[in-house]
């Protein structure tokens, strides 16, 4: 059944022109509909404070567009909804394009001043009706094409995976035909176009007809430009990108799927795609919407949304260096949960895809407000001891004791504290030593040490944070001594320190168990501050992994054990560091930087 597109232009509640394609038998202007739509629009504006944009009545999608700026004139487009369960982006995009085209053409022919001073003659704008009908006819073809979308038929095209990949990557696609006059060719072109529009997820596709492959070179200035060519005569993709894994999976699925299942894919392609992505651990990053990102709060599982393009939707953003083709940043996103504020530090790429929740913590309103108050007066109160999630350092560790504490907020984080030490008392002792220093020195030293029994306690101090430890190995002490200043000088936002203090424990474990050159503290800095090390990577072209690994194994001995799982996204850098396969952390970073720098996989 062919369903009509209808458009109606309304001014002050009266229809002033209308058009439909295919034309309706009864073209009588319906003032009843005009009145009803006008009243609904005015009612919505009055009650909601904004213009109605779109509504669905029965099987029809109604789109509204204002004409002028005084709420009196508007244009309404009615198109049938193809997918009744999930009104999709297709209808929305098509409606918007049509209403804008109609409005532009109408206001171009009838200047707004004339339109607003209209007399009550019922036929004053009827000249525009055939023009509107022609516009509707043009776009009706898109609708018909989408209605006839046949994914099963796609299998008749040889190498259709390449076509899917190209369309999803929004690449240029050429239709090669020497028989453009042949109606069958037109039919095939139309069917393929429907498929391309579907995978492009827009009606604005980059498709051109050519008679000769040489025409591609003539039509682009870039000889290296990726182009996909579909030979319409042979129904085959004769040139195109390496098929993505998703495209292959999709074709496999369609091959054996029932018509009902295929219909489900068409109706909810995004859902299907996400399911496949989640199950098979690969993705096309550029297809994720950059308009907004959802993730589940690490504390309450509530879905939290933020937009990387909207600074108001997150608290702070820390940008990291380019990481295997991904441009990762840490966003601190807050949301209200009852009387509390939950802050999630999430690692997201340039497309807004969250790769990891780095840290989640709670602030009550008072704490939240106090974050903005500088340097609170230290209060004489007991320390609150926080124990690390696991015992990172060995019992016979060369780092006998290690504490991080905040002298203002009175918490102590135990990285390592044997049973025979009372960490709270040590913290108080350190504070007392610090007060001694402050009494006798104009500028207290950022480092000092004191003896405690047979041990020497090393203390590093910043304004609020204090590190103290008993480090028996001189080499470890020397390396850490260089790093401590960096750790303490870092500007911590909110409770970011909670995440960093856990990573500090990991850094100390590495310091103890791995080989470090004395002057090289870069690896420690990265372990503690670089959030990319906890992100699994997602490769656009995962098929390069075996060749790349083989090539690098000869240059980097550790490549074999860590590179494959890392490039497959099954292991993070941090996971790799923690394995025994990586004796030298520097070497691992060197390998990763080598790949990243040369953009071997991005």
């Amino acid at each position, binding site marked *: 059944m062919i369903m009509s597109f209808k458009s109606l232009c309304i001014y002050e509640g009266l229809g002033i022109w209308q058009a439909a394609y295919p034309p309706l038998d009864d073209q009588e202007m319906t003032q*009843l509909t005009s009145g*009803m739509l006008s009243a*609904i629009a*005015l009612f919505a504006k009055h009650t909601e404070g904004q213009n109605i944009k779109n509504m669905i009545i029965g099987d029809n999608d109604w789109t509204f567009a204002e004409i002028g700026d005084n709420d009196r004139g508007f244009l309404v487009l009615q198109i049938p909804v193809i997918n009744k369960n999930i009104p999709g982006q297709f209808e929305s995009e098509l409606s918007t394009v049509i209403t804008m085209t109609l409005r532009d053409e109408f206001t171009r022919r009838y200047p707004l001043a004339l339109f607003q001073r209209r007399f009550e*003659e019922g036929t004053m704008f009827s000249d525009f009706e055939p023009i509107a009908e022609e516009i509707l006819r043009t776009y009706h073809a898109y609708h018909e094409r989408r209605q006839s979308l046949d994914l099963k038929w796609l299998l008749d095209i040889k190498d259709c995976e390449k076509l899917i990949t190209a369309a999803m990557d929004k690449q240029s696609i050429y239709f090669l035909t020497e028989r453009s006059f042949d109606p069958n060719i037109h039919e095939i072109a139309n069917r393929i176009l429907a498929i391309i529009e579907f995978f492009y997820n827009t009606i604005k596709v980059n498709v051109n007809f050519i008679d000769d492959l040489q025409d591609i070179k003539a039509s682009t200035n870039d000889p290296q430009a990726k182009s996909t060519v579909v030979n319409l005569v042979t129904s085959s993709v004769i040139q195109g990108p390496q098929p993505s894994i998703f495209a292959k999976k999709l074709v496999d699925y369609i091959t054996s799927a029932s018509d009902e299942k295929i219909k489900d894919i068409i109706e909810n392609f995004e859902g299907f795609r996400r399911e496949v992505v989640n199950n098979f651990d690969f993705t096309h990053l550029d297809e994720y919407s950059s308009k907004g990102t959802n993730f589940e709060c690490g504390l309450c599982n509530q879905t939290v949304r933020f937009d990387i393009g909207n600074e108001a939707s997150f608290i702070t953003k820390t940008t990291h260096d380019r990481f295997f083709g991904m441009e990762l940043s840490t966003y601190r996103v807050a949301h209200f949960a009852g009387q509390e504020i939950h802050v999630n530090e999430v690692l997201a790429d340039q497309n807004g895809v969250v790769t990891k929740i780095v840290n989640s913590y709670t602030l009550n309103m008072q704490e939240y407000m106090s974050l903005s108050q500088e340097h609170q007066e230290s209060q004489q109160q007991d320390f609150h001891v926080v124990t690390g999630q696991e015992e990172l350092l060995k019992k016979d560790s060369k780092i006998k004791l290690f504490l991080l504490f905040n002298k203002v907020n009175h918490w102590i984080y135990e990285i390592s504290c044997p049973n025979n030490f009372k960490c709270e008392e040590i913290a108080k002792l350190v504070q007392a030593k610090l007060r001694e220093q402050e009494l006798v020195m104009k500028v207290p030293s950022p480092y000092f040490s004191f003896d405690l029994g047979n041990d020497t306690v090393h203390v590093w101090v910043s304004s609020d944070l204090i590190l103290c430890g008993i480090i028996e190995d001189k080499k470890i002490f020397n390396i850490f001594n260089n790093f401590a200043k960096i750790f303490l000088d870092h500007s911590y936002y909110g409770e970011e320190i909670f995440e960093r203090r856990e990573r500090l424990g990991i850094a100390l474990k590495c310091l103890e168990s791995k080989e470090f050159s004395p002057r090289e503290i870069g690896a420690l800095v990265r372990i503690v501050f670089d959030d990319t090390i906890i992100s699994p990577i997602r490769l656009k072209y995962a098929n390069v992994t075996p060749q790349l690994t083989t090539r690098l194994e000869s240059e980097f001995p550790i490549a074999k054990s860590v590179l494959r799982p890392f490039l497959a996204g099954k292991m993070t850098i941090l996971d790799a560091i923690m394995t025994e396969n990586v004796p030298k952390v520097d070497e691992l970073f060197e390998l990763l930087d080598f790949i990243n720098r040369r953009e071997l996989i991005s």
Partner: protein
Amino acid sequence: MQTYVYKIVIGGAGGVGKTTLLCRYLTGIFKTDTAMTIGVTFFNKDVNRSGTCAKLAIWDLGGQDRFRMVQPQYVNGAKAAIIFFDMARLQTIMQIEEWLTMFRTSANPSIPVFLCGTKQDLLPPDAIKRANEEAMEIVASRGFTQYYQTSAKTGLNVEAVFDHVVDLLLAQSSVQMEARSNIANSS
């Protein structure tokens, strides 16, 4: 055939019989729950007058107070208005001023406004006389175009009200057309 489209707004206190009277006059009622949702019901009527067609789009504004805030916007573009009161409940006259103010403020200060007393068939002659006298006072003091006593039951003046409205509007349009034609010819 020359065709004109006119928006006519109808107002009056709740329960005075606006819709009943309109139903008597009109065919092609478009009645959904729109009235409940957005406070207005729509009626259409085509009236032919010697080679000219007047298409009436009649907006019957709900009498309920909760829709009063949005109704001024519905009145935009109206070419004529009719305000109803119940001759059997003269307290409904009290709301006439409110409706009149809204029509003149939101549509046009010089919009033709007709006053209609309804349910005339329910009243004895002396009560009819009293109601008409009160109405005529308002018509004179507030500049109404015309007053009609009506009955949806007997059909008294039902056609006459709308005939008067249509004649007036067509006459106005004719004058406007003539003026435009003169301007076009002189230029």
